């Protein structure tokens, strides 16, 4: 990770098979209440041959996070590594962050009777919240803090096609560039044999 790393997500639409594993893994890992999906898989141009693709979307941890700009309680804070987090104790559930967000990331669990919405919940990039790191309270309110344990966010970790990438933005773009450049390369026309394994010379 470089010094000025900014953690970002990238979902490679050439690889995503729309299995929804990321959103299920997220919901399970953080024990999210029913109806809250921090991560969602959307399919564009459904049913149109050649144009259909799927994408996994959650909070994108924006550089000039619009949610942070509009929040009337100023409860957002952006970590040095670019992770956008918020303080649920200050949040009033006004949903302004949802109106500002380009990705529909903020979620509002219904809070008791009449379906009135509670405070906001969104993807934390598995980095918890402002409570003491790895405390019981942090886990209850924000879910696991995997970043503090040096683990990859669970959605990207379990992605079977490795479509969903997370990490330093520069590294992510390198990986993606390599993928694009190597499309069609290394396609095997012969079965693997001695020569592949040991080379032709003895």
């Amino acid at each position, binding site marked *: 990770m470089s010094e000025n790393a900014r953690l970002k997500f990238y979902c490679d639409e050439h690889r995503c098979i729309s299995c929804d594993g990321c959103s299920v893994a997220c919901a399970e890992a953080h024990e999210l209440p029913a*109806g809250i*999906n921090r991560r*969602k898989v*959307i399919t*564009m*141009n*459904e049913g*149109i041959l050649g*144009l259909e693709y799927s*994408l996994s*979307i959650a909070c994108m941890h924006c550089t000039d996070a*619009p949610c942070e*700009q*509009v*929040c*009337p*309680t*100023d*409860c957002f804070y952006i970590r040095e590594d670019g992770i956008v987090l918020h*303080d649920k*104790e*200050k*949040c*009033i*559930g*006004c*949903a*302004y962050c*949802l*109106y*500002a*967000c*380009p*990705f*529909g990331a903020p*979620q*509002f669990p219904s809070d008791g009777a*009449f*379906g*009135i*919405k509670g405070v906001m919940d969104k993807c934390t990039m598995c980095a918890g919240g402002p409570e003491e790191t790895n405390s019981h309270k942090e886990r209850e309110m924000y879910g696991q803090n995997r970043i503090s344990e040096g683990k990859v966010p669970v959605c990207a970790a379990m992605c079977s096609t490795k479509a969903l990438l997370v990490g330093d933005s520069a590294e992510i773009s390198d990986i993606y560039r390599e993928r694009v450049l190597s499309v069609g390369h290394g396609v095997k026309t012969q079965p693997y044999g001695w020569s592949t394994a040991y080379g032709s010379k003895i």
Partner: protein
Amino acid sequence: MKSKYIIIALLALSSLAFGASESVVWSDNLIDNILGYDKKGSLHLGQYFTILQSTYFKPLFLGVLFGVPAVFLLHYMVIGPMIFSHDRKKIYVFTLFHRVIHAIAGVSFILLIPTGLIMMFASTFGGGEFVRVCKEIHAISTLLFIVSIVPMFFMWLRWMFIHLDDIKWLMIVGGYLNKDKKPVPAGRFNAGQKTWYWLATLGGFIMIGTGAAMYFQDIRLDILASNHISQIDFLRASAIVHNALGLAVVALFFTHVYMAVFAIKGAIHSMIDGHKEEEEVEILHSSYYRELKEKGEV
């Protein structure tokens, strides 16, 4: 008759609350700026909402909050209040029904405006439980607002249409720029009161609608979907309209209070016991006074 409207309004509101079964916010239209092939875009209000909310609304509300009272303080010191004789007869202008409805509206405004401002300046109050409670009070006092504003709309409607007097009234700013007791052109309600009436009723209905939309969030309105407007864009529009109208409501509410309590000495009594001083009617509502005279009621 009147209660009929109240019941209709309450039913409409409660159907909004319970009509939301399946989420419209987190449906296909969730991300309205990533468009699939052949899909029509929504209104793309996200950037406008972000710019308005992050940069303009707070300073504008601050401006109204301090600017309007400052102007009135200046007016009070330079021109001063109008004082009318209390020795002449009193004219009965507001029935008990008018006064009760007005009082309910007054209470709802006294609850709605501060709680709304606290939400707007939530960070100043530290957010959290206190502001959350204010948010709920804001929602609950809307019910009071509804029960008062619906009858108010009908009970005063017939006097509220624009009249030639209103233009003349506006030209001389209602005669408030000097203390001359020259008759001011106005019927039962002057142009200022009419503006406030329309803002409080029609504007009030819009405030109720946009506020309910934001409060319940997931209200399904098929008219939106059929016009390619995403739920989130509808919520953004609601927030923009609610805040913009809110500015006007706060400004005119302050004006209304200043007029009743300070600018015209004793004016507030007409909303308590229903009577206005004869001289006050003669000067400030001269056309109405003439009418009463013709009918021989004064």
